[in-house]
């Protein structure tokens, strides 16, 4: 009974929000506004985020970032003795009218910082840059399906000029990718900003770089040049973890569907993946132990689609 009422005529809440959802967003300080005055981009069906989800996210972020930084510092267990790092160990969530923000506090090479990462539209990328490098060049709002193709093309041209595509390996940006994947795992577990069928897009960034040399993509690329095969399915299987060689992105994506399109003198790879309970629960090929119909339709563990797009010059 503590909900707030919304008046559609002035398009305002009738009482103030108890919380300033995102201190980094000036729109948050208008506590009568709904979803940052941007209902075309955000929705806030519940107005709340469960404290258990917040704790879950915090635990994952804390654990993963601690392990990564301990590893980077010669397995020194005392963070006060670390001389470098991507950031540590405390993560939590706050509800913010349609944007569930993950915050991290920490220490990177002796310089204190704080950062936030909203699991939505454009918030994720900027925030995560504090953990290492900005990974998400393009992140349309969940479910919109729109892509800024001008930006994709610009990035493609930059890739070609810089030959970045040739430098990818399983250990490029490993730690920042591992943290990003931890956030995605946490977002799926908590259901934060991922409605049923909701999508996230990654275009020519560090995450997609990690997929360029995935075994399924290597095979797809060879089949394209050999037979002009333009689409297919790449199973991961139990051996996939070994073949991924510790790459967190490949391990997270697992089995995927791909399409290859020739654009001018480049190839564009589009990889589609769904993280869901039915795919998460180990199962033999062609048989669900956890069937599709049991998947939650919203909230924690609900279907989470990702689309990864990268380009490379044609051989």
């Amino acid at each position, binding site marked *: 009974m503590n909900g707030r009422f919304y008046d559609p005529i002035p398009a305002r809440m009738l009482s103030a929000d108890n919380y300033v959802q995102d201190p980094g967003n000036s729109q948050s300080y208008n506590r009568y506004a709904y979803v940052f005055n941007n209902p075309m981009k955000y929705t806030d069906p519940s107005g709340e985020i469960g404290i258990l989800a917040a704790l879950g996210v915090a635990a994952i972020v804390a654990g993963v970032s601690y392990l990564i930084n301990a590893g980077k510092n010669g397995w020194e267990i005392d963070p006060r003795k670390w001389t470098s790092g991507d950031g540590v160990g405390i993560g939590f969530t706050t509800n913010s009218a349609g944007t569930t923000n993950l915050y991290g506090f920490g220490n990177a090479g002796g310089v204190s910082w704080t950062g936030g990462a909203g699991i939505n539209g454009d918030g994720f990328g900027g925030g995560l840059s504090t953990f290492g490098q900005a990974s998400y060049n393009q992140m349309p709002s969940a479910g919109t399906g729109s892509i800024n193709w001008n930006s994709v093309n610009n990035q493609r041209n930059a890739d070609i000029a810089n030959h970045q595509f040739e430098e990818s390996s399983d250990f490029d940006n490993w730690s920042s990718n591992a943290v990003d994947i*931890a956030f995605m795992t946490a977002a799926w577990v908590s259901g934060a900003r991922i409605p049923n069928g909701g999508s996230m897009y990654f275009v020519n960034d560090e995450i997609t770089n990690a997929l360029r040399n995935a075994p399924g993509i290597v095979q797809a690329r060879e089949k394209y040049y050999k037979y002009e*095969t333009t689409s297919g399915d790449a199973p991961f299987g139990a051996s996939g973890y070994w073949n991924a060689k510790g790459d967190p992105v490949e391990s997270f994506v697992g089995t995927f569907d791909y399409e290859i399109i020739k654009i001018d003198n480049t190839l564009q790879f589009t990889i589609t993946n769904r993280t869901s309970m039915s795919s998460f629960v180990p199962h033999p090929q062609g048989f669900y132990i956890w069937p*599709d119909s049991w998947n939650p339709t919203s909230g924690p563990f609900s279907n989470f689609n990702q689309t990864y797009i990268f380009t490379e010059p044609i051989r």
Partner: protein
Amino acid sequence: MRTMKKLILYLSIPLLFVGCQGLAVKEKIIDNYFLVAADASEWTSLSYHEDNEGANYSSLIEATVFAVGYNDNYMIVKQHPCTLPNPPDKNITNFYILPLKEGMNWRTKNGLMGPLTEQEFNAKRKELGIPKDLTFTKLLKNLE
């Protein structure tokens, strides 16, 4: 000790980041033709697979394939168009005909007839002399 910690880290990360493993759908139709789907049954496509070309399955007819029938000479297929990761559009049904013996190159999809409307499909079927007893014997009811 350091090696052990690294080993534990490397073993624990994939478990934490566990993704989808096997195909959600994998069913052999005939010869090298399979119904397969990664992650979700509505992504079911008709694919071709040769053992000596890696684990990948090459899509011949994209998602969502929901009905298939075949005889010695032809395979007939029904599909609801689906642009991943969106759900299939069940208001539209496309029909396809694949020659199984001659005239079909699975690699380039040359020879594949479709997408066809039901009227075009029936006309093409008559033209090719496909017998009436060839029906859609394999039906994925949840995708129909």
